């Protein structure tokens, strides 16, 4: 079954605005990761947050994790047209498997 589900499915904003994407998951996790996929390209890792962390920053990215609500959010501040892409959350559950389980993604469109 699908572990992570992103919300919203699609988001359109103006350059300079902030973009917030949410991810919900179902089972206990070791960590949660966010990836970006530009159209026609492979996924690129953005940030990893462990289950014992609540917030993490990387440049214009801010990720929060609430394990009690089984949810995470990705905030992109001062968005740019180049941020236009699909964003996926991926969870690693504590089952010994090495695989990540990906959500269905949020398509972000940043209008110049």
């Amino acid at each position, binding site marked *: 079954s699908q572990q992570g589900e992103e919300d919203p499915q699609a988001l359109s904003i103006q350059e300079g605005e902030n973009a917030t994407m949410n991810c919900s998951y179902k089972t206990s996790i*070791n960590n949660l990761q966010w990836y970006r996929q530009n159209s026609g390209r*492979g996924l690129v890792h953005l940030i990893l947050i462990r289950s014992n962390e609540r917030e993490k920053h990387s440049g214009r990215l801010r990720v929060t994790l609430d394990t009690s609500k089984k949810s995470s959010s990705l905030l992109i501040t001062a968005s740019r047209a180049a941020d236009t892409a699909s964003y996926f959350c991926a969870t690693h559950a504590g089952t010994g498997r*090495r*695989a*990540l389980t990906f959500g*269905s993604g949020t398509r972000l469109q940043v209008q110049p």
Partner: protein
Amino acid sequence: DTAVSQTPKYLVTQMGNDKSIKCEQNLGHDTMYWYKQDSKKFLKIMFSYNNKELIINETVPNRFSPKSPDKAHLNLHINSLELGDSAVYFCASSLHLTSGGAREQYFGPGTRLTVT
């Protein structure tokens, strides 16, 4: 320098044919993966190898057979292709697990397979 490469980038073939997709990584990782991304962009794990050993084999038809000749290569062979196999296939690699869980994965550019 390309970190994870796949060939071919595009593959158009007819039903019933057999085809292969190759993947190579030069990151020194010990774990490699194959994912399938459908038309709705949903990404699903198919296989994972660690040091040439198969460690994850999801419910994938046995027409799909991965092969890992060494740690840096993971190929995917597909027999008797069907229309439903049309998708984008991604190879990825990572280092081994830590106490904090799975490490970040590095993805190849994808192979768009179209079965007609």
